Each structure stands twice: as structure tokens, then as C-alpha cells.
């Protein structure tokens, strides 16, 4: 399922509100494109529903999403996190989970937080953004071609 340009823009806005500043230098749009490609239809529709809910909620509150500052987006998410309605309080969790996958899977962010875990950038953050043919690794136990 393809997201609209507005949806992609909003998703980026969500990440800006949810992630620490150290993560915002990453090419998150590249990550978003891969989420769009890989998420099963049900999840993609779920994500679209979350973005629509955010838009409507902001509109009904008299201040559209697009006119709000990052701090206001963050405050909205904080409020949703404490909701007694399960679906509403899970929406920021879903968005935060996606953002965290991108941010904390990247060696640059990990380094900024003193976490020496990964050494090379994930595929979505590489300049060519190439999705390699699977199984063509260095020919380890699982990787060698017949």
C-alpha cells in the first residue's frame, strides 16, 4: 500500500516528536519508504488509521496537525499515552516502535547514547538503499549458493 505525500510528511512529523534529537539527522524518509513497502496491508491500514485519527483530533481541537509545533505534537502523544482507551494509548506506542527501530538500530544514534552494538548502517540508511538479494552473504553456513 502506498501512503500519500501528506501521510509520509505526517509520519515524519510524528518521528520528530517521538524520537530524541540525536536521531533526527538520520535519513528517516528512507526508513518510511521501507515501512510502506514491507508492512502487511493490515498494518499499513492501521498506520493510515492512526494518522487519520491524529488529523481529526487536531482539527476538532481547532488547531490542525500541520500548524502545530513539534512540542505540541509531543504533548498530544503524551496525553494519548495516558488515555483509558486502549486503542488511543497504543497509537503513540505503534509510532514510537517504528521510530525506535529506525533510530536505535543505527550505529550513529547508538554511539551517541554510548551503545556499541551495531557497526554498519542498516540497508535503508545506505546511499543506494538497496534491498539485497537474501542469502547471498559471505557464504556462511546458511549463505553459500548451491
Amino acid at each position, binding site marked *: 500500500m502506498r501512503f500519500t505525500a501528506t501521510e509520509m510528511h505526517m509520519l515524519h512529523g510524528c518521528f520528530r516528536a517521538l524520537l530524541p*534529537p540525536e536521531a533526527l539527522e538520520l535519513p528517516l524518509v528512507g526508513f518510511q519508504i521501507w515501512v510502506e513497502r514491507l508492512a502487511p496491508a493490515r498494518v499499513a491500514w492501521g498506520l493510515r488509521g492512526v494518522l487519520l485519527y491524529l488529523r481529526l483530533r487536531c482539527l476538532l481541537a481547532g488547531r490542525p496537525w500541520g500548524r502545530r509545533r513539534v512540542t505540541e505534537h509531543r504533548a498530544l502523544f503524551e496525553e494519548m499515552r495516558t488515555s483509558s482507551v486502549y486503542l488511543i494509548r497504543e497509537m503513540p506506542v505503534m509510532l514510537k516502535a517504528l521510530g525506535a527501530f529506525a533510530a536505535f538500530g543505527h550505529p550513529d544514534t547508538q554511539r551517541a547514547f554510548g551503545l556499541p552494538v551495531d557497526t554498519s548502517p542498516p540497508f535503508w540508511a545506505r546511499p543506494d538503499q538497496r534491498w539485497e538479494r537474501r542469502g547471498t552473504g559471505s*557464504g556462511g553456513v546458511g549463505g553459500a549458493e548451491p
Partner: protein
Amino acid sequence: MTGVHRADALPAEVRRHGDIADVIIVGSGAAGSAAARVLAEAGLDVLVLEEGAPIGLAERRRDVFSGFAAHWRDAGFQVAEGRAFTPVLQGVCVGGTTVVNGAIIHRLPEPIHRQWLREHGAGHLFDARSLERIFDTLDRELSVAPVAPDHQGENNRLMGVGFDALGLSSHPIARNVAGCEASARCLQGCPNERKRSMDATLLPRAFADGARLYADCRVERVLTRGGRAVGVRARLLDAITRAPGPAVTFRARRAVVLAASAVETPRLLRRSGVGRTTDLVGRRFQAHPGTAVLAEFDAPVEMWKGATQGHESLARWDERMKFEALALPPELGAVRLPGLGPALGDEMRRYGHIAQWAVQVRARAHGRVTESLLGGKRIRYDLEDADMEVVKSGVATLMQAAAAAGARVLYPGVHGLAERLPVADLPAALRTLSGLSPDPRRVHCIMAHLFGTAVMGEDPGSAVVSPSLECHELPGLYVFDSSVFPTNLGVNPQHTICAMAWRAAEALAESAVAAQAS
């Protein structure tokens, strides 16, 4: 790995007209690999068809999202729906979920085995002595041994300290690894090739005995003739995009074995027309839902050093819970820690001091795997109130153990408790916790151990497969994975799945070889 053939490298003849073997096995995880290992050794011509691809060494050195995208079902987004959404984790690659699992080894618990013998006719093949013999062999072939003390790491060690202080027994986990480098990345596929998963053990053994495996090959249905299973129809997938390519027919001279997991096997059965009379296929889906408590210590924990899962406690197994240490990569840790924006950054700066331990519940709940009206699968699952009481009690134990081990802040992960709880507030939090309603929406569980969607039993009216794991409705079609388990286990299932498939394959080999001889 000789023996593994990517779909796009198959000879044109096979891509057009398919292939034939004595036994076709669908899926190369715990069950499929054990079956291939035994059937090939018995001299049968074995063809394994696997939807996923082999994972190369480079691909194991990846962040979580890349790993999920490459070799997890639905890129890691598979969920069960109920009052809460619960992630259902499964691997899709050569070696199946064993490649991305925690490498914890357990034998089938005696009380569960006794129940299966008593109530489900399991004694026909799965008598204690046969299973013990197979478990011993598997222990050898998979290099099973308890975690060495110098590979524990702080996350595992502290769990022992906490449980000792509570007077609850605990011990280092027995794992299927050889020369483990304690890099705590088992869930992304061991980057050092130390995990003795199926792609490194039973599959190469099967290949040495002549078995072959076609990867990127998604089986769509079982083919029948004269009321017998005679083969399968599969789609060859594009190696990069995973887009479905040509449909190919594979024929089986003796048997078709489904080992596609407790989620995918019932779907295949239903698509093949099995289960129309009893409506049992896909029902009775069971699991071990699990949730975790994080705890912050003064001293560094550095979860990224040590065995991913190196310490466990069965002290409250009779109360349907099992505790395990579980090192969490930072991407997943960030989801669990509170705080948004800069506040999340503050939490993550202390990540090196965080430990995580989990409780897994032998839940009573039954769910269902069906086809969605929108296409694709639908997994329905809802924890019962009694299960949730177990979850709450398990979370309480984990918090107490962390406090006893010296934690100063706890992250219970329960809606209704503080997200960040100083240990001084623990007594009050425990009182609050016990009074909370048993609503599954209060916690974030995941499910990784799945069972029961094509149960075994003697009575065709209440079971999908016979005690020798052949389909009641369709002779020649066998189910060897944990779909056939009549109940969940309360312990990690890989070893039991392998052993059951092994034993069933021995019986199948005997009858096939006898039929060949005559």
C-alpha cells in the same frame, strides 16, 4: 550450503515441470529439519520446500528492523487480535524460527507428557523411552550444554542473584550453541554462527544423506488423487522482491509432511480441503504469551554482552509461569522505556544499566487461526482472566527479584502502575497491581511458542491427525509441527518439536521402506 537450491537457480526443467521425491516436507524449521534428517538417513529421497531464503553471514550482522524485514513472518508485524493486539513472532528462512530463537533447550515436561498419554493417545509413538533416546541424540547433534559462567553477562547473573534472594530456585539455561561468543544477538540470527540451529545441524546432516531443499518456494496447497495426498502445488518467489512467480507441482511417491508451523500448517490444511467435516483445523490455537520487566541498576549491565538468554527459573512452573532473562537490543528497549523526544533520550543514556527479565505463561486461552475476509490470515487470541492473574503475579515476582538484586528503578510495563517506579515505591505498587482488573490490554505480551491448530488424537471427531500424525481425513498427509500438540508445554518447545517430528519420521520411514521393499 550444498543441498539448498534457490528458486531462481533451479534448472529450467524443475521450474517448469516441478520435481518428484519419496517424501515432500513443507517447511525447514524445527519439525521439518528433524523429519528430513531421519527420512534421508533411512534412505528415502527427501525434498524440503521452504518459503524463506537461506540467511548469509552478512545478513546476520544487522539491526533488528533489517533482520525482521529479511527473515521474519510479515516483516515482524504479525499480530494476534483480541481485546489487545499481541505480536506473534516467527522466522521465515532456511532453518525456520530456530535461526532467530533464543537457543533455550528443554525436554517435554513429564506432567504434560503424562497428560498427552492419558488423554490424547500419544503413547502410540511418543512413549517416554523413545523420546528420551531422541532427546539424547538431539542433545549431541545440537551441542546442548548449560551456559558457561564466563558467558553469563550481568543480565543473566543478576537474575540469579534476585531469584536467590527471594528463595526461588533458578539456574543457567541449557542452550544449543557451540563456542558461543556471548554477543546477545541470537534473535537476529547468530552473527558468529555459533547457534546450532537447524541450518547448521540437522539440515546439513540430511543433505549429506541426499536430501535437497528448494528455498523461495511457498507451498499453496496439497494435491490429492484417489483420496490420498500425492504432492503439493507451490509458487516460486522472486529472490529480492518475494513476489510470487510461476506455480510448480511437486509430486510425492510416499508422503507429504507439513511442518510449516502452528500458524501456516492449518492454513495449508484448510486450503487443501482438510477439516471441512470437523471444523477443528485452526482452532485450539495455544501459546505462551510473555511479558517483561526492565530494571535499572547502579552498576553497568550492558545487556549486549552475554548469552541472549542465559538464566531461567521454573520455581513457579506449577503455577503456569516460567521466568527467563532476555537481553533486549536497544531498538526494542527504546519501545519499552517511557519518555518521548528528549525524555526518551535521557532514558536511553542509561540503557547500559538496564536489565530485562521475562515471564512466560502457560496460558489456558484458546485462539483461532482463520483466513481473513480481506485476504491473508487472521489470528484471534484473548488471554483469559485466570491467565492475566498469572501474568500479574509473574510481573510481581520479577519486580521483587529485581529489587532484591539491587535495582533502583523498575519499569513494570503494566497500565495502571507508574511507568518508571523507584524501588522505594514497590510495596505500594505491588498492592495496586494485585487489585488491577485482569484485562489483557494492561500489558504488552508477545507470543513466540505456538501450538494446537491441528491436534492429534485417536478420535477423528475431535482430532485432525492420528497419534502417528497422519491426517484422519487424508491418508498420505502428515503434520509434524507443533500444530499437533494437544496442549502447550510451559517450557520452550524447539526440542520437543524436533523430538516428536523425529519419532514420527522414524515410523513413517519404517512403513515407507517396507512398502518399497514389497
